[in-house]
């Protein structure tokens, strides 16, 4: 069965409502209406979100909705990996090496990119970022990190 937009959206909101609602109900004291505890407002909101999610689900099933359509898997994976690569390597490798790696991963998101363009963008963007963030804005990021033998 193809996945319908409204069905999925309804289920997603119900899922979030359960996640927040159950966590709040089991770990946070609700308190009273006069002295609200940390759990009162979240439980209220989760209940509301669950109801709205249910309404989206039901109206979606009754009225029918469009299917989700294709997802650019390669682009999505590369784009989402980019911040993770940067976050994981910037302290160890330093700005220069980390940015070279990060930019390359980002460029891979484009399905039609040629090797020459990739190389050019990677080097150009790294130099530009170092110039702007390190020299012009003076951000306290070291250029070379402890993982490098230099």
């Amino acid at each position, binding site marked *: 069965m193809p996945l319908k*937009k*409204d069905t*999925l*959206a309804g289920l*997603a*909101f119900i899922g*979030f409502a359960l996640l*927040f609602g159950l*966590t*709040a109900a089991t770990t*946070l*004291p609700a308190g*009273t*209406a*006069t002295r*609200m*505890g*940390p759990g*009162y*407002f*979240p439980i209220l*909101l*989760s209940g509301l*979100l669950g109801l*709205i*999610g249910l309404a*989206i689900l039901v109206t979606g099933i009754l009225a029918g909705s469009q299917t*989700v359509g*294709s*997802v*650019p898997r390669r*682009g*999505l994976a590369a*784009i*989402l*990996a*980019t*911040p*993770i690569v*940067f*976050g*994981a390597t910037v*302290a160890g490798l330093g700005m220069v090496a980390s*940015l070279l790696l*990060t930019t390359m991963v*980002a*460029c891979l*998101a*484009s399905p*039609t990119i040629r090797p020459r*363009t990739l190389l050019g*963008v990677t080097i150009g*963007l790294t130099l530009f*970022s170092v110039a702007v*963030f390190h020299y012009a*804005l*003076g*951000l*306290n*990021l070291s250029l070379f990190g402890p993982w490098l033998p230099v």
Partner: protein
Amino acid sequence: MDLFSNLALGLSVATDPSNLIYCFIGALLGTLIGILPGVGPTATIAMLLPITFSLAPETSIIMLAGIYYGAQYGGSTTAILLNLPGESSSAVTAIDGYQMARNGRAGSALAIAAIGSFVAGTLATFVVAAFAQPLTRLALQFGPAEYFSLILFGLISSIALAHGSFLKALAMIVLGLLMGIVGTDLYTGTPRFTFGILEISDGIDFVAVAVGLFGVAEIVRNLEAGVSREGTVSAITSLMPTREELARSVKPILRGTGLGAVLGILPGGGALLASFASYALEKKLSAHPEQFGRGAVEGVAGPESANNAGAQSSFIPMLTLGIPSNAVMALIIGAMVIQGIVPGPTVITQQPKLFWGIIASMWIGNAMLLVLNLPLVGLWVKMLRIPYSVLFPAIIVFSAIGVYSVESNSFAVYTISVFGLLGYALAKLDCEPAPLLLGFVLGPMLEEQLRRAMIVGRGDPAIFVQRPISAGLLIAAAALLFIILLPLVRQKRDAVFVED
């Protein structure tokens, strides 16, 4: 102090050399991203937020504001010359602006758009200045019950004026509210929804959320759709509009300014809605409605004035009440909080330099934009040659550096990816990210006002209807909800957004 001495104080702040430079940078960047399709002001401001931390508070807000209204100018240039609206708020300008360009009136259309924007920007600056003080005075009488009802009203009207499914927008707001209160509960010190992760005990990083929802998710959607840049640029012969064109533009510019200024103040409003409403209005009032779509100058003058006026007057609720009316204002509130300023009615009395400086800088920025846009139009069109495959790695790399630089915190950078995925997935399901961001910013405020109001009211929710201002706001919110849910109005509302 009266209006003019306040504006004089503002002018002295705004003409400070470093503020002038950052105002110029903001306007320049705004124009640039306005021209480039696929890069919006929300993503750009989110990306640049971390960089502004090292600047003085007024300087940073002046620059961020410049990006927002600068984008309104830039977006119209490509809409007219290439039929490619750089911003969604310029989409209607493309209808008649591009036809004017094909009729050989490209220069004239650009000039009318720039003049309209400038007139609107100038008048809207005075509107903001005039409304600020009375609203602030009113806001100072607000107690927790009034604030709670006001935020509720704001959230509901942001749905009313947004397009798309009502239920989904509502769900996104509630989800945003929930995500906004992740972190340590201020009253009891209890960690909430942190799942043992130390890095989010102060809440989820706001900048990372904004960059993920708007920057990253937008890139993936563009990669999916393919950003097209092709098209022939119409030649620009003369920038001078004819006397007749100018005469026909005067009234649409003034009407557009008025409409934009009013719609901008409403939560959920701002530039986009203003431009669509103005186009519909001009078409209705025109003696020759059949010319619309074939190069009617009114169809350029009205919406271009309206979107600029709307962009500016949407600062009013943000500056006076501390309530953002759209995603860009939510980001600017975030910038103020990070600078240690509590947004709200106290800003005008405690930070008069900041407050009036921002307002005055809007007018200066508009003057700069007029100069930037008309003579340099050829240069801006050349910028369109930058391929998207160069642009998107830059956006995402800058975002990552910016978010990391705030606290040298890798976890915040990972948050970008999490919210990028969430934003993309939800957009795929036709759920707009803007209501989620509004909820995220307003969540902690809404909860705090609710708790305080309930303490004042001794646990009786009747306090919200017993206090007249609060009751009025709740009635307004309920009325709005009723109007949205009337199917007839729904169809009409959709019709405004579907232009033939």
